[in-house]
């Protein structure tokens, strides 16, 4: 057991769809742990860092959201070839910031950027991976939280379910005894945003923009009420919540509740 053979290591692949590649980069930023990770797994595909490709995977990590018909084909294909599929980063988990464009009529958005040449470039609403295929686990955040990614990777290599937090960022903020940014008169989406980032934004004096998506059973009216108390109109409150959560706020598009 201790002397794992190379072939026994799980075959792991990384794939990227539409996003900023910050999550990919974040993995390369694990410098100190990178070599340790390579001991644990058999990395078979990682376009941003290597040429090799493989046919089948034990774990496929998917980054980025689905925004074109060809993305859809590719994600179906990957799902067929992998045992476990993990969505990495908010683009893959919920559509992330890309989904902000879903608030505007598509034609208008394209017009805005490409003028009369807009027909050259097909696009569709930015969708989370789970809108198309079954997602086994999620690592949230924009960029995804690295400790959480490591936790998920270690857990999956060990063969156990990862512990995914489903409570508010405020919890981590309080555990770290951060000064609450609300106390400073700023606003914050921490009370309705899923923890797992170690409250990194409030720890740096900045407000939480809700990049990890909403906690489940969120009290939406309560959240709007809270933002109103802090001086935001309902429209502004919803706009604030929508920055990373457009798809989650649109009920019809509540892909999570499979």
């Amino acid at each position: 057991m201790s002397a794992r053979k190379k072939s026994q290591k799980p075959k792991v692949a990384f794939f990227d769809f539409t996003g900023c590649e910050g999550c990919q980069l974040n993995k390369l930023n694990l410098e100190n742990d990178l070599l340790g990770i390579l001991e644990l797994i058999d990395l078979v595909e990682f376009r941003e860092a290597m040429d090799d490709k493989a046919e089948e995977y034990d774990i496929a990590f998917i980054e980025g959201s689905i925004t074109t018909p060809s993305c859809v084909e590719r994600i179906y294909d990957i799902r067929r070839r992998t045992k476990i599929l993990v969505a990495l980063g908010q683009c893959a988990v919920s559509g992330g910031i890309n989904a902000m464009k879903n608030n505007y009529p598509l034609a208008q958005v394209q017009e805005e950027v490409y003028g009369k040449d807009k027909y050259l470039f097909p696009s569709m609403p930015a969708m989370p991976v789970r809108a198309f295929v079954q997602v086994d686990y999620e690592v949230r955040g924009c960029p995804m939280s690295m400790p959480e990614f490591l936790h998920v990777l270690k857990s999956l290599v060990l063969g156990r379910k990862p512990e995914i937090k489903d409570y508010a960022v405020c919890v981590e903020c309080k555990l770290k005894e951060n000064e609450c940014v609300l106390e400073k008169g700023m606003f914050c989406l921490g009370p309705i945003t899923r923890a797992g980032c170690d409250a990194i934004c409030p720890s740096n004096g900045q407000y939480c923009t809700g990049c990890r998506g909403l906690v489940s059973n969120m009290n939406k009216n309560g959240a709007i009420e809270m933002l109103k108390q802090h001086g935001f109109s309902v429209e502004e409150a919803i706009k604030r919540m929508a920055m990373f959560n457009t798809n989650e706020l649109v009920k019809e598009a509540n892909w999570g509740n499979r």
Partner: protein
Amino acid sequence: MNRQAKDISEMKCCFFDQNTTKQFIEFLMSKAKVIAPHRKGEKSFSFQETHNPEEVVLNYNRTIQPIKKFFMPPRETLLEFELNGKPKVKKPEIKIEERIFLGIHSYDMKAIRLLDFSFDRDKPEANYFLRRQKSVFIGIAYEPDEYHFAQDLGIDVYDTTGFSLFMVPAEKGFLIFEVDETGHRYLQEFGKGLPLDAELQYERPEPTKKLKMHYNRLPQIFSHVYDSPVWKKVAERCLGCGTCNLVCSTCYCFDVFDEVNLNIKEGTRERTWDSCMLNPFAQVAGGENFRPTLDSRTRHRLYRKFKYLTDYSGELHCIGCGRCSYFCPAKISLVEIINELIEDYNRQQQHAAVTVS
């Protein structure tokens, strides 16, 4: 150790000016690790180890985390283990160090006494008591702000129970009262204070009267408001973010989980503070959630403070520090909830009286 100390008017007392106070802090630092309120960020305070007397802020309203973090850290390793082959477990050693807690408000001291009860009850917990022992507390009087309601719960600003010394801010310095033997020893050794023999005149702040009923009737109220509409009303605004539990001076629920190292050969069992306001708190593997709604969770939180534990210890387990309300993002006030429950109770009583007559 729960004995009620004398009233401070009967205690020996001396005066420290600002400079002597600094020297005294230095003196204390030479005796043991000193923990005192420090500034944290723009508006908040935090208990922290003092490396320099200048950092100590003695006129503070409340710290974010209560003192319990020194006896039950927000995150602690319960066990270290090896996974491979025959499992080996080791309990990490807990250092027993002498600590002086300086500038503690009377309610925060009371909270420690309540936690002593909770950690002793049923099965005493070594982790807590190992850290808890060898602590000396030096209290300080405070000026209640709009969120404090400790006085309403019967905890006097000048309550010296549990302290060794007690400081009262005075013009250009502090009055230092000798509360117990240790305190007496400290003052003797330090030997710099200006002795005060004259009869002291000082004002006790007016009781705040924030609660609409005497505190010793609260458990009784709580026997009648389990099904009150107030819970649902609070739940409409509550975000279930857990802040109230996580800053509470007397909460001590926790979560436990295993974390493995990158080599997946060793790991640790960790415990962190938890909160009964969080959705997954009472959820089991099958998906069943025994407290699925925010009203049931809010009710549980308050019942733990005013009824459940009270029935065992005979004391209220809220000390009126106001942390939960002060830090609540939705600005839900505990005092308001209690007052609404009192009103609800009064209505019930009136109604009962009417129906009887």
